[in-house]
């Protein structure tokens, strides 16, 4: 016990641990009554699912090959041969679905409570960008198993992007990494899915969370605007 405290003291002196703890966790937040408080868990639920996706994703990447002649077989291998592989892939797939659901619910909570208002405008904007990143994750990840559904859903997606006025055909080609879908599409999507998007998402989630702590979490809205209570 005494040793523990000494160790903590030693660490605190060198890292400011105590201050960090106080800022992040021991901070006070406005009270929300009853069931409303549970709505405030949606944000942390997003973070939780993101962490699940990162862990399962990293593990899946250990057995996956992003090349049309190996992708499908490597996914099959994960499914059939690797210990817990099927379960892990199931977690990642359902985690992706949950990600979309929880992020949207979180957005609805903030929307209906008007929590995007002053001074939290930028927090909301970062949130919208994170929503787009989640969509991009979903789109790029869908192709990776390289089965029929993956291939053709991506083909449809690329066609939809190709309908953008003026720059459509260029956008479609950039997505596909060339004139036709193939080798370059898969490597491109893989790089986006496992490198670009996670880095961007981690960065934006970091900013988002910083802003949440900086401004403090919004209080539940009231029907009438109460005045400041004079002490």
């Amino acid at each position, binding site marked *: 016990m005494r040793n523990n405290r000494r160790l903590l003291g030693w660490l605190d002196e060198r890292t400011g641990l105590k201050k960090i703890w106080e800022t992040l966790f021991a901070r*006070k937040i*406005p009270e929300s009554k009853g069931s409303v408080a549970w709505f405030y868990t949606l944000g942390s639920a997003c973070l939780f699912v993101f962490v699940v996706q990162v862990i399962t994703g990293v593990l899946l990447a250990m057995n996956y090959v992003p090349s049309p002649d190996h992708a499908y077989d490597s996914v099959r291998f994960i499914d059939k041969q690797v210990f817990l592989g099927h379960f892990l892939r199931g977690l990642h797939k359902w985690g992706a679905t949950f990600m*979309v659901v929880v992020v949207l619910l979180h957005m609805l909570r903030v929307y209906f409570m008007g929590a995007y208002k002053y001074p939290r405008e930028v927090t909301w904007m970062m949130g919208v960008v994170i929503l787009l990143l989640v969509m991009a994750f979903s789109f790029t990840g869908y192709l990776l198993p390289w089965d029929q*559904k993956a291939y053709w859903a991506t083909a449809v997606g690329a066609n939809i992007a190709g*309908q953008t006025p003026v720059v459509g055909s260029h956008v479609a080609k950039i997505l596909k990494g060339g004139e036709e879908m193939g080798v370059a599409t898969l490597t491109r999507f893989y790089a986006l899915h496992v490198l670009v998007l996670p880095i961007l998402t981690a960065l934006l989630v970091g900013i988002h969370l910083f802003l949440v702590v900086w401004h403090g979490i919004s209080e539940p809205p009231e029907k009438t605007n109460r005045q400041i209570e004079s002490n």
Partner: protein
Amino acid sequence: MSAWHEEYLKRYAQLKERGRSFFPYAVFKDVIVSFLLLCVLSALAYFVGAELGDLADPTDTTYNPRPEWYFMFLFQVLKLFPGRLEAVAAVVLPVLVVLFLFSLPLIDRGRERHPSRRPLLTGIALMTIIAWGFLTWKGYTSPLTNPIVEKDPLVLAGHRLYQELKCSYCHSIGGQGGLVGPELDKVVGDQTEEWLGKHFRDPQALSPGTVMPKLNLLGDEITILVAYMKSLGSGPFTEEAAKLFNENCTTCHRIGKEGGDVGPNLSAIGSVRSKSYIKSYIEDPSRANNSSSMPAYKGQLTDIQIEDVARYLASLKGNK
């Protein structure tokens, strides 16, 4: 800084002062929710899992993918916008929605936060949720989005036999195979099952002079080959076909749960009529049926459109 901003910050500081610590009161709830999520996730991962379909086949242009459920509404919206307007639904609308969301805090800058004090925005959101739910439900109940049916065992067996017999030395399907014989996916839709059966029994009898050899197939083998041939449908059709059908035919005809009952139900038309019959019927019904009250569509639709719709209808086998 406008007046209420300052006031808000002061009031928030007061609320915060009177509030409780984030740890452990809020974190407790967060952990409970995360744990419940993990339970549901694990159950889904373990009992449902992630499916892995057939290997991607870039030459199989008849495959019609279903989008993930949360994109189903977009799929459904696309059907409401004909032809050139499709770009509006596919690209312009989503971009506008995202722009609206992004700039929401700049649009709605007032002090009111309670949903009942912001009726317009609350209304918009509720309407959007309802519309999204409705379109998603429509997407799943309407068979038009995806007429491709699950492969049945006969078809799979037929496909294996096709490979064993090395049919692809002379014939091609989806552009793969030899060029001596006809491209099967383009021509079999024109033939009835009966014709195909006889043809496999003795090619010379039906097509004198053909170089196709007599294969001495068993009855069962002919059955599965015919099933496989019929599954190839009548050549690829576009998404436009379902849309054209919706615009022109659903007043009288029914496919699955949608459409009128003035004319015959077409849910399984592909298993009784060949594509060429359907095409000719759409062009001018009086050729085959003098008492038909259906209008002739030749001239109404272009030849390509009629071909498209005929191929689409020929692909409907009713086992949905």
